[in-house]
């Protein structure tokens, strides 16, 4: 097997540069590549374009890159719950491209699987469809959407092996599998890194061919955004 293991987050991030486009997995703070983000915050890179369903919160996740003004443009579906984001957006400091969540997911998957464009009903008749080709299939209106192009994808999995195979947990799966192989270089961080052959081949969510570098994350805070408990 081809071995994808790197020994540190620094090695995993080798090659990141100003102005690059990054994909980052996660939904809210669930399943975000915490270690990669933490490292990116410490690097002297900016003017980034980030594709991620959400933009973190003020002091966690992508919110930290925003605070640092490292992000030039954000491509996301939902950006509520982030005051600094809203400030930068309304002041014009931050470019924002809002995309329906299913379209965002499918545009990642399209990049992963060599589909340059596809049609979706989402956003037809709204400002999302402005300037885009629309077409009727079987009497219903659809919008043509194109695959993303990105330089790095940062994803977070639960378990992985050194061949780059990944298994995700619960709803921390979300966009992570779809971003693997969707950028020029895919960096996966995992909570548990097993030797090659440590995973059941039938249970692998993402085959190692879609991952270029894999490392075990040192620290996972896994912050909960909305702790909601059963009322007694």
């Amino acid at each position, binding site marked *: 097997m081809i071995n994808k293991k790197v020994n540190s987050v620094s090695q995993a991030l080798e090659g990141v540069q100003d102005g690059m486009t990054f994909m980052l997995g996660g939904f809210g703070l669930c399943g975000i590549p915490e270690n990669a983000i933490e490292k990116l915050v410490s690097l002297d890179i900016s003017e980034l374009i980030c594709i991620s369903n959400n933009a973190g919160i003020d002091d966690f996740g992508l919110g930290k890159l925003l605070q640092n003004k490292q992000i030039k443009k954000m491509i996301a579906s939902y950006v509520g719950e982030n005051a600094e984001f809203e400030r930068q957006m309304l002041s014009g400091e931050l470019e924002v491209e*809002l995309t329906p969540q299913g379209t965002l997911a499918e545009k990642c998957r399209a990049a992963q699987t060599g589909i340059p464009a596809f049609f979706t*009903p989402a956003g037809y008749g*709204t400002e999302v469809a402005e300037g885009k080709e629309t077409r009727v299939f079987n009497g219903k209106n659809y919008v043509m959407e194109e695959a993303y192009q990105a330089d790095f994808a940062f994803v977070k999995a639960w378990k992985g092996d050194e061949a780059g195979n990944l298994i995700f947990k619960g709803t921390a799966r*979300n966009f992570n599998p779809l971003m693997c192989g969707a950028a020029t270089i895919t960096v996966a961080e995992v909570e548990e890194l097993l030797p090659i052959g440590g995973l059941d081949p039938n249970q692998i969510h993402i085959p190692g061919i879609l991952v270029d570098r894999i490392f075990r994350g040192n620290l996972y805070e896994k912050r909960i955004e909305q702790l909601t408990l*059963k009322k007694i």
Partner: protein
Amino acid sequence: MALDKNGIAKRIAKELQDGCYVNLGIGIPTLVANYVPQGIKVEFQSENGILGMGPFPEKGEEDADLINAGKQTITSLPGASFFDSAMSFGMIRGRHVDLTVLGAMEVSEKGDIANWKIPGKLVKGMGGAMDLVASAENIIVAMMHTNRSGVSKLLDKCSLPLTGLGCVKRIITDLAVIDIIKDGFLLVERAPNVSIEEIQNATKGKLIIQNKVPEMEF
């Protein structure tokens, strides 16, 4: 008397049919899960990647890797499954999810809905709402009849940027159950002790009143 949020949720729960897969939006729709009628089996999908969503966890049982689309900690029921966002929206676009309940800022008498942006003021983003309203077979809007300033949210035409075009089938508010038909808003039911006149006054779009309008039953 106008319903509270739980009252709206309770009335919406009556729309659930046995064997339905349901996606509940953030806010009032989330409450619907508390009122599933007895004897009926429905499954809740949350678009961040779970089918078979269960109640909120007990204290100490919460799992950061298990949340709903509102980012709340949840549990999974026996028979649940987890999947990625492409599969999740595949279910939605592919019309496998039977019913979507979501909130709105405005609904027009053509069934247009606006719920993601107030230009220059507030931009939350559409999240999964545009996919949901463009795809679901059956879409119910759950909302207050008027906004905090008392202005009607049921309009002849939406003033805010749209989420979807001609997609809403039914609106359930604190005052009424209203269907979108060819000519406008058809008043189907009144909240208990709410008069047709009250509803009329709170509705800016064309309200159609046919025959006697019954009170909601729960």
